[in-house]
């Protein structure tokens, strides 16, 4: 069966008449950081739950760590670490107790768990909060406790479902840095996210999911090369009631685009995106043509642009 830690073929999950995951193929290799990128409702979390051996697939083939989740669920879960979308710590316990108590479910000796808990609290920089109740901790701290808890059994694979959703920017960066360290230690990370910056920061390889299917896959750089241009020129026009909308401005640009101003123009409700390999040149041409955007921005293409290209929609609503 090769070296894949996770291997899915034609994986399907239906809830009644609703198809959450609609036939996906996935291979995740040891040591890589693999991402599922997509908007809410794309089927990412459902896929994670199937990989986590808590949600039986409706159809298709799934092997996790070489085992069948339908048969070997407990054996698979023994070697996984799971960070769920919503924190589910035991709020009646202290930070340290949460780790100690959790380690017992993996059948680990008490002394091992104790040593590991101390090490992990240090890793997530919460040693000084070890004896505090979990409940009053900040969102970022709770997340870090959850991550420490997920590592208590020294897992082969860590599943992280939307690890930084709902956190403030500073807490997100702390978390990314910790996850990056994990990755450097050779821990296999599987994560879902609807933040393209998170996917770019953490993932070696990712799949773009939309409506239960995989729209594209590759490394962030490969995806951008395959589905977008090098640069993007963003143009914002004044939004006046009854005035010309972005679509009208796009029409005004039509003669320029015909002459190769941009490979592609995306019309969003509040702005135009010109996809081109030379954003500054495109911007100069637009201004020379007499169009007057209120603001403009030339930037490199991101996974957001890949997603827009693949689905016609933006990632975050």
């Amino acid at each position, binding site marked *: 069966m090769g070296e894949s830690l996770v291997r899915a073929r034609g994986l399907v999950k239906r809830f009644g008449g609703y198809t959450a995951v609609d036939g996906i193929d996935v291979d995740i290799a040891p040591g890589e950081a693999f991402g599922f990128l997509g908007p809410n409702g794309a089927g990412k979390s459902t896929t994670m739950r199937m990989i986590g051996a808590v949600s039986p697939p409706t159809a298709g083939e799934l092997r996790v760590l070489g085992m069948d989740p339908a048969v070997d669920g407990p*054996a698979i879960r023994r070697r996984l670490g799971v960070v769920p979308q919503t924190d*589910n710590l035991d709020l009646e316990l202290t930070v340290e107790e949460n780790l100690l108590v959790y380690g017992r479910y993996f059948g680990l000796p008490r002394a091992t768990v104790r040593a590991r808990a101390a090490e992990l609290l240090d890793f997530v920089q919460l040693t000084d909060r070890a004896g505090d109740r979990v409940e009053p901790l900040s969102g970022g701290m709770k997340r870090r406790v959850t991550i420490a808890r997920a590592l208590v*059994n020294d897992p082969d694979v860590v599943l992280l479902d939307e690890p930084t959703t709902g956190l403030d920017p500073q807490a997100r960066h702390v978390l990314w840095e910790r996850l990056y360290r994990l990755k450097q230690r050779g821990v296999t990370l599987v994560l879902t996210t609807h933040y393209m910056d998170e996917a770019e920061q953490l993932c070696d390889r990712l799949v773009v999911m939309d409506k239960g299917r995989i729209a594209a896959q590759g490394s962030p750089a490969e995806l951008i090369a395959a589905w977008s241009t090098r640069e993007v020129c963003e143009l914002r026009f004044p939004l006046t009631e009854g005035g010309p909308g972005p679509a009208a401005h796009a029409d005004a640009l039509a003669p320029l685009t015909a002459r190769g101003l941009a490979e592609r123009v995306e019309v969003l409700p509040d702005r135009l995106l010109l996809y081109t390999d030379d954003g500054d040149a495109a911007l100069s041409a637009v201004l020379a043509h007499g169009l007057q955007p209120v603001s403009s921005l030339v930037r490199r293409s991101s996974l957001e642009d890949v997603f827009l290209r693949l689905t016609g929609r933006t990632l975050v609503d």
Partner: protein
Amino acid sequence: MPGPAAWSLFLQRLTAHRHYWRSSAIGSVLEPVLFLAAMGLVLGSLVDRGPGVPGGVGYLAFLAPGLLVAAAMQTATGESSYPVLGAIKWDRTYEALLATPARPVDLVAGHLLYVAFRVTTSAAAFLLVLLAFGAARSPLVVLTVPVALLTGLAFAAPVTALAARLEEDAAFAALQRFLLVPMFLFSGTFFPVEQLPAVLRGIAYATPLWHGVTLARDLALGTAEAGPALLHAGYLLLWTAAGAVLAARALTRRLVR
């Protein structure tokens, strides 16, 4: 069949309990003192001046073992209603545990182990109060603690099954109002069910509480006989087993999907 993860959950709940065991212990002693004083001694003095309760014992001796078992019912249902729904829906701690090798059946077993601990320790405290009030008539009174345990589980298991199916907690208030309080009042704790009209008496016989109360009382008064005692215990075990199976099934349907 449950595995070692059940024990892990039991220890987890015990760890949480350690944070507030004092207030819980005070309640376990204070409540029987208040009940036995008000109803057993004061109200009992009025009852004993009249025809009294059957069997020629004082009202206090009649009431105390019944109350001990009824308190077990309350403790067990309390621990199996909001805390279980909370573990499923609000704090989602069961979700966290199902990401480990634990299975739903382990969670049900671990939860019932913890309820067993809570009921047993509370009943033991009640027994000490009962003895201090001089309400025991037989050394077999110590067996009222295991009877309380059986009764507690006979409620905990089906209430856990109910909690595992609920989306909202409103049903717990209804359960309390329409089932537990009437059962508490009419299942033989305060007066023999023979006082009830035939229909109500039939209903009382069907409740697990009546079986627990009757068995505990027979033991405390030294009037227990093996046959009926085994039937009472068997009936309570039946509720426990059926409730546990339903609870594991409901939890699986709810969380492994």
